[in-house]
């Protein structure tokens, strides 16, 4: 039996002030967690695990404070979400025959969003205008969900060196993250399932074939999978962080579905002086939301068509070990503007109170977007190498020098792309240049490890 009590507290605060302006945003998550896990062996063929856990969550999604001059903006009460999150599980690992093992289980999960809570009711024809708020007292239920999550997996040994595995899993996720831009930022918002946000529901199927070669010197495998995800969340088009202030963040969410499928190939050599592994995954991850991308399907940000890695370790002798790691991944999917258009930054014809006429020739270049995540950043790849020198083992300590080079061939991997508007409309030489920013070029390092 294993019992634990856990307390987690995460806080984030960001502020800025400049002369007449002051600004602060803060967010956080606090969890009280208790869990118990038990084991039961009814006989030699069964290993039954069961247990439960309970978490009390307190979410503080993005809240803000702002002041300009002597005005402190009325940003409403600090909004928080409180939730009970409980689960019971039972799992049996059953050796049906010597060659056939089944792992079957079920998890019952219960999630309740409770007060204190204020639901802002927005006027559908006038976003930003609230008709009403519905207040829930402390501990009062706002919404709750009870679900069963079955899981099943099996392994069948075809012979001494090969086997097949298959699995089926369903699960519910009650905690969600939503982000605004294409880069993760502290303005990403964690929210629980509420009356508006239904739990995310995933179903996954996988099938694999595993074979060892040359007296287990090589392990190889091929696996295929398919995953379906319902009740995915995202911000509605055009949402900005200030839309979450004096509002419930989930009022700005839209909902859709996702699916993902792919195949993984893996070869590993684990004996001899030279060992390591090669892995390759081909995958597709798609999303479809009625209210995003005009209802058309689109690639998820992390839709990685190709993902490969190579790890090689060479034990030259007792003193020296050499290592090499190479990784490759398809670039992130990105939304880029398709069109540009010019707008006069104010009424072009200016007439002041004395009747003096002027022409506004300050023009802004605006962007028009069409397909979501339709552009790919350049592929990410990188080679790291290392050489490790071990000292002779002393009685109570040993030491190790590691000489390494990160990104050996200095690949400029894309971190993000931005556009630079150069020139101005008055001189008629305005233009847009795309720029790619990369972090970390070649980084050599020397590390000294001392174990005692």
């Amino acid at each position, binding site marked *: 039996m294993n019992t634990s009590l856990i307390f987690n507290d995460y806080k984030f605060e960001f502020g800025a002030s400049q002369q007449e302006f002051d600004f602060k945003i803060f967010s956080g998550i606090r969890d009280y967690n208790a869990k118990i896990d038990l084991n039961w062996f009814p006989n030699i063929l069964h290993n039954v695990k069961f247990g439960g856990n309970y978490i009390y969550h307190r979410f503080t999604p993005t809240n803000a404070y702002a002041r300009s001059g002597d005005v402190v903006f009325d*940003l409403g009460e600090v909004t928080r979400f409180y939730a009970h999150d409980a689960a019971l599980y039972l799992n049996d690992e059953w050796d049906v025959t010597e060659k056939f093992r089944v792992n079957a289980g079920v998890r019952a999960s219960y999630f309740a969003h409770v007060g204190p809570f204020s639901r802002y009711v927005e006027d559908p024809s006038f976003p930003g205008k609230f008709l009403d708020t519905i207040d829930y007292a402390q501990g009062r239920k706002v919404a709750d969900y009870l679900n069963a999550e079955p899981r099943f997996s099996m392994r069948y040994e075809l012979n001494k060196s090969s086997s097949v595995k298959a699995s089926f899993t369903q699960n519910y996720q009650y905690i969600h993250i939503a982000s605004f831009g294409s880069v993760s930022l502290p303005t990403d918002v964690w929210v629980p399932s509420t009356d508006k946000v239904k739990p995310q529901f995933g179903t996954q199927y996988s099938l694999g074939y595993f074979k060892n070669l040359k007296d287990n010197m090589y392990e190889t495998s091929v696996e295929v999978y398919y995953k379906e995800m319902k009740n995915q969340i995202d911000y509605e088009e055009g949402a900005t962080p200030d839309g979450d202030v004096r509002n419930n963040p989930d009022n700005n969410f839209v909902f859709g579905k996702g699916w993902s499928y792919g195949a993984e190939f893996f070869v590993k050599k684990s004996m001899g002086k030279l060992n390591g592994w090669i892995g390759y995954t081909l995958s597709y991850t798609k999303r479809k939301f009625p209210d995003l991308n005009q209802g058309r399907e689109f690639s998820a940000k992390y839709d990685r068509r190709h993902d490969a890695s190579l790890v090689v370790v060479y034990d030259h002798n007792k003193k020296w070990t050499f290592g090499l790691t190479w990784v490759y991944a398809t670039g992130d999917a990105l939304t880029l503007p398709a069109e540009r*258009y010019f707008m006069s930054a104010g009424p*072009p014809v200016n007439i002041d109170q004395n009747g003096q006429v002027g022409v506004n020739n300050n023009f802004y270049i605006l962007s028009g977007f069409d397909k979501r995540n339709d552009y790919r950043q350049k592929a990410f790849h990188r080679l790291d190498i290392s050489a490790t020198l071990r000292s002779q083992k002393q009685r109570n300590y040993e030491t190790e020098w590691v000489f390494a080079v990160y990104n050996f061939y200095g690949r400029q991997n894309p971190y993000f792309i931005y556009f630079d508007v150069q020139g101005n409309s008055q001189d008629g030489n305005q233009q847009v240049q*795309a720029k790619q920013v990369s972090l970390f070029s070649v980084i050599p390092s020397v590390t000294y490890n001392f174990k005692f």
Partner: protein
Amino acid sequence: MKKYLILILASVAMMSSCEKNIELDLPPIDQKVVVEGYVENGLPPYVILSKTEPYFDPIGQNTINNLPVRGAMVYISDGIDTVQLTELDTSINGVSLGGFYVALDSITFLPTMIGTPGTTYSLNIITAAGEQLSSIAKLPMPIPLDSTWFKVQEDLDSLGWAWARLSDPDTLGNAYRWFAKRLNKDDFFIAPLGSIFEDRFINGRSFNFPYNRGSIQNSEAEEDNNEEADYYKKGDTIVVKFCTIDFATYEFWRDAENQVSSNGSPFAVPSNVKSNITGGRGIFATYTASFDTIIAN
């Protein structure tokens, strides 16, 4: 249990990021019609029609002049009368006004309609190519500023911002836009970035607020690139054009200013500027202006 002591003795980490120009290969686009429609109090409504272009096409000297959509039929209705706007094809200060349609009589050049606060206007456009666009916007009632003044910024002896006091009415949904020009220095009213605001967080309050001096984007003028940038200066006569705008005009400029100030940054949300035009891009904007003059001393 083993304990570990790890010392990173030397690491030549080139933490500085590096940056390079890249060419992006984007698919062809369907050009859309861009509407800039204006109804201002006391002025005849006018509309400028142009087209969108592929994002990275080079911008030549004449690009702005080449985009106008000519030969469209443009109608504005105030609920009682409907007028067809007259197309003018001239240029002022080298800026082509092709694709410029105004509510003036084509012979007498007298206004056929005048913007009146409290009126809802509808716009209907049929281009020569047969595209149809429409929009509706209300010209709001004026909400003038209570007072305006200049204040030197703390330790700067002659530079400062324009300040104003506003009493926001106790009804939600009021939105504002600030323009200003310096007499004999600026040719037109300039909106600084952040020129728009609404009353969601300040509803029904009276408060003071400052505005910096706006400049045209990427201005090369000396005063926009030295310590005077963003500031007004003692001796300036500042004319403030303070406008109440309808909520759609607010939303358009909120998103447009976000796009302009984030310049395609990855931290910005890649989304379209919210538009009240059905069938194209742009805005049918309404501005009810009140004017104030500040003498900076």
